[in-house]
């Protein structure tokens, strides 16, 4: 593309480069801040990208990257014809959308609530507690959830006491409930951690804004609505874009712990399927091809979400 342009309009291109160059020179200090980051990305993120060639090769555990045979799009064909893979796509989207619907606003609400509490020990304690579950690994948490959801576990006890049911049922064996279990337990674990970024942004809000609003007679809810939220909008937008682009991702650890033979039809997500079919079977090509496909779709989702929010916000957050 570059070559073509050059042939067509050689002069103006050289001029433009010159102009660009001189402007670049003026910004030398700024550029000297940005370029190390770009060099870093090229070394640590771009050079290893040749590893994606595994997706187009017949690669095994004893292969080197150059020794494996090229097989073109064969791996992608296998994936696209795999009914189980498509089932896992449906489950991934189902769980992700539930997380988006309920999990996206939870940290925002929680952050606003914490922000509205008077400064003091209570606020600090609540804040600290809320982010603790983030540090529990899914191995431990999963073990707890399994026992709580068993026939005589905590959840069934509560339901029996409340008179909702007569006899305990194992909740985890009920495939239809799995999407809810996966999304709600994830929200519960990460909501507090998710408030940190919002709280940090809120801490940057100029207090005089609130003072002015109060003088104008605005109530607390009104203040939240017209001052707090608009000012954390860039971070909300950023999180939104990343959540949308991450729709095809899911929590591998969580799935591996909570999945059992009976909820598997609803619990198998792309990550866990690729992990089991790919890495546990020593089939690196399959895993790389699937990951590459997911990455491409994710970028498309990112671009769409970015365009959308840009239209709504008149500002780009990327």
């Amino acid at each position, binding site marked *: 593309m570059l070559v073509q342009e050059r042939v067509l309009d050689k002069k103006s291109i050289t001029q433009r480069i010159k102009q*660009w160059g001189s*402007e670049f020179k003026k910004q030398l*200090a*700024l*550029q000297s*801040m*940005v370029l*190390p*980051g*770009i060099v*870093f*990305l*090229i070394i*640590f*993120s771009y*050079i*290893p990208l*040749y*590893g*994606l060639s*595994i997706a187009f090769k017949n690669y095994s555990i004893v292969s080197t*990257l150059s020794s494996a045979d090229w097989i073109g799009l064969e791996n992608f064909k296998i994936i696209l014809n795999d009914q189980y893979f498509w089932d896992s796509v449906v489950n991934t989207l189902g769980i992700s959308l539930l997380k988006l619907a309920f999990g996206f606003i939870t940290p925002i609400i*929680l952050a606003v*609530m914490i922000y*509205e*509490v*008077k*400064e003091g020990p*209570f606020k600090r304690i*609540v804040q*600290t*507690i*809320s*982010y*603790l579950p983030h540090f*529990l690994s899914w191995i*431990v948490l999963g073990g*707890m959830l399994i*026992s709580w959801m068993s026939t005589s576990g905590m959840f069934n006890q509560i339901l029996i006491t409340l008179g909702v049911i007569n006899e305990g049922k194992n909740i985890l064996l009920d495939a239809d409930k799995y999407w809810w279990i996966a999304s709600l337990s994830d929200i519960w674990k990460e909501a*507090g951690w998710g408030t940190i*970024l919002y709280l*940090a942004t809120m*801490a*940057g809000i*100029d*207090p005089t804004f*609130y003072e002015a609003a*109060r003088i104008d007679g605005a*109530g*607390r809810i009104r203040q939240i609505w017209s001052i707090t939220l608009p000012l954390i909008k*860039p971070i909300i937008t950023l999180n939104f874009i*990343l959540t949308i*682009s991450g729709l095809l991702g899911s929590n591998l650890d969580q799935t591996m712990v909570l999945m059992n033979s009976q909820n598997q039809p609803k619990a198998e997500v792309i990550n866990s399927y690729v992990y089991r079919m790919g890495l546990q079977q020593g089939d690196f090509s399959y895993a*790389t091809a699937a*990951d590459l496909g997911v*990455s491409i779709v*994710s*970028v498309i989702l990112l671009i769409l979400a970015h365009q959308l929010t840009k239209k709504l916000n008149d500002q780009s*957050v*990327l």
Partner: protein
Amino acid sequence: MKPLYSTTKKRLCSGKLFNAVIVVLLIVLSIIIIFPIWNVIVNSLSGAQASASGINIFWTSEFSLENYKAVFRDTSIWRAFIVSVLKTVLGVICHVFFCAMVAYGMSKKTLKGRKLYTTIGVITMFFSGGIIPTYLLIKSLGLLNSFWVYIFPALFSYYDMIILMNFFRQVPESLEESARIDGAGVWRTFLSVILPLSKPVLATIALFHGVYQWNDFMTTKLYITKEALYPLQMKLYEIIVQQQVTSMVNPTSVAITTTSKGIQLATIVVTTLPIIIIYPVLQKHFVTGMMLGSVKG
């Protein structure tokens, strides 16, 4: 925030009901959240019998420190602790400074090549070459079995850069303007105006990266074979997985005094505690508004 709340009694009074509702909600949420964590702590402090029978809910009838003794029996754990602290502290300082520097440059809309840089950066958030080529890269850079493998590859993250960049953009133009009039260059402005004003977001990124550095053991598993460079998480990972070896290979020696579950939980408490303590320390930066120090004071 403090001055605001203390001087605006009216604002708080006007919403007494509002306050009460929030406080009650937060208390309920906190209880829901704290319960499983409490469960972990109680079971880690319990003897085998009580923890196996599942009767430890709020407190244990069989208080015992055996699990913790088992974790701390390995004396090399202290050296691992030092490695962990070193890599976390150094890693956080380098990472936060590096990301902030790039972010400041990127926050300027007039930056030449900004769109290209953005594309380069965003792509890295989605595509990675995978473990094998990365290993080969680390190897060719001579970082295998080197402490710096904890620092260099984790120096920069495009995601953290975006957060910082969006924060820097909210810094009022007027502040930078006045610095420039005082004759400060780009670097001076960045170091003496922007950075001090951005404590909340710097603290956030420090927390994110600190938690990453503290919890990460994949880097060790992949690139480090020297035990002297093992961080705490790797040590404790070994303790957990090697619990399995006993029952796998030598069933006769399964300990009766400690359950493997108990040790696992004690391990989790020991590894998590230091990093959890960091939060209250950083917390004050989240609640001190950035403008208070500059515009007002």
